[in-house]
């Protein structure tokens, strides 16, 4: 095992849609830090004011379903969430996470059941695994192409790197 990080768990159930992550009426707010104060207002009103950088979200099925609004993963990132574990993700939300540099990991239902809301678990970045209740959950690595986007810090940085590399070739 490498160096581990203690991190807090925010646990959610099924079908947390993007309207619940950030409701429509807050999307007009031009200040993302301000907007983020209303994240998860319906399912977990205390979330936005209490979540700490590095905390992880653990959800069951279909996390992030609903609209394509990128503000949903963006408010979570703004609040310091950079890893989400879910039994399944909605497709657009999943891609938006990768494009913003948030790591969306799929876990098994039995692994989801190990987590308690507000409990502390350990994350080993080197081994890419989570320690919870004497169990170790190995997070599945992303395909190399996706990992290259995540490693760059998101799609904008990745496309910029590619552009610059092409310019040098010319």
């Amino acid at each position, binding site marked *: 095992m490498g160096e581990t990080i203690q991190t807090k768990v925010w646990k959610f159930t099924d079908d947390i849609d993007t309207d619940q992550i950030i409701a429509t009426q807050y999307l007009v707010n031009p200040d993302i830090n301000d907007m983020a104060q209303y994240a998860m207002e319906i399912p977990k009103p205390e979330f936005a004011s209490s979540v700490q950088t590095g905390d992880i979200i653990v959800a069951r099925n279909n996390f992030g379903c609903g609209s394509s609004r990128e503000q949903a993963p963006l408010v979570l990132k703004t609040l310091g969430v950079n890893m989400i574990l879910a039994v399944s993700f909605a497709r657009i939300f999943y891609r938006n996470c990768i494009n913003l540099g948030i790591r969306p990991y799929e876990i098994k239902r039995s692994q989801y059941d190990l987590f308690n809301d507000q409990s502390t678990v350990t994350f080993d970045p080197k081994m890419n695994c989570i320690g919870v209740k004497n169990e170790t959950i190995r997070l599945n690595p992303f395909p190399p192409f996706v990992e290259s986007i995540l490693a760059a810090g*998101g799609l904008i940085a990745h496309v910029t790197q590619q552009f610059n590399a092409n310019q040098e070739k010319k």
Partner: protein
Amino acid sequence: MSQTLTEKILARASGQESVSPGDIVDVSVNTAFIHDVFISGVVEEFSKLPHKQVWNPNSIVLIADHEVPAVSEWAGECYKTMLRFAKTQNIKRIHIAEGVCHQLIPEKGYVGPGMVLVGTDSHTTTHGALGAFSTGIGTTEMAAVLATGKIWLKVPETIHFELSGSLSKGVYAKDIVLSMLQILGAEGATYKAIEITGSAVKNLTMADRLTICNMGVEMGAKNALFAPDDHTMAYIKSSGGDASNLVNAESPRYERTIQMNLSEIKPMLAFPKGVDDVHPVEEAIGTEIHEAFIGSCTNGRYEDFVVAANILRGKKVPGHVRLIITPASMHIYKRLIEDGLAVDFINSGAMITNPGCGLCYGKHGGVLSETDVAIASNNRNFPGRLGHKNSQVYLASPATVAWSAVYGKIAAPDSAH
């Protein structure tokens, strides 16, 4: 070979002979569109990229439909951002307050069979109705598409619906897709393609197909499509769409096939718990309603209003019901006026609004209060989606909505007898 239509399109667009589910492919985009809610975000992300010009201005469509007429002090700035971006990038396809994106794109001929379409709206699955691969993406992703004309996609498995039989009286395309949701659930097709074929497809109009593909995303699907046929080509002929990317699939291999006999389908409702809490209308008959809505990118087409007008003509909606009619485009709105349907609606006590998305995302033009119960022809009823988090929304076909409006409570569409 045995590729599905989705695989065939993705193979064509990534310059390969064939692709298989799970492959990650770099795909060339034919049409990319952005709507007013996300234009600022896209332009901001695009400005962070070193690319000064978009990859092809003629492949980009800008549509203001969510915030029209302006609902906040912010909206006017969105239109201006859109106009500025169109001018600096030489984008000609810009439509402010002309209609809902998922109606304008087919109507204006911006989609054709075999194309790859991406848009900053989850209901972009709609355009699979014309045999295109069409899917919703986020703002950052769109900025990258604008710069490169390309997008990475994981080739999805395909779920196949094979439709047979014919619809009974009072049963419509909306009831077909609600029945599909009942079978698959809200995530039954996550990451997957939905392909719809079968002997019944030839009787489904383009409006029907647009309704069904529109709600593909409610099953979690990446895309949903019908194989191009005579209906498709006739539509393309009148819209002026590009048919040069046409591909067809022969005896494809699907992940699974679900048989549906349309003769067995009843009028359906999605109950307020969510899009996949689907029950026959008869289970909710008599539930008092306060708002009835016919419109949206799901069911705001001319054909939908003909059905509704035939029910509402000569009748009066009770005083406690707000009936809202929202045509999906100005072109449809004009036809409603020219053909007298608009007068039928007004005489029945309806409000007719301009084309737009305001009601469907709980923003304006029909926002629900805490104790409101609504029956609506749109595609979503998540808690709080159309207003207060405790408001209740039943999703239904335009016919079921119209009959329910007439009675002031949920009614089956065969209530005439």
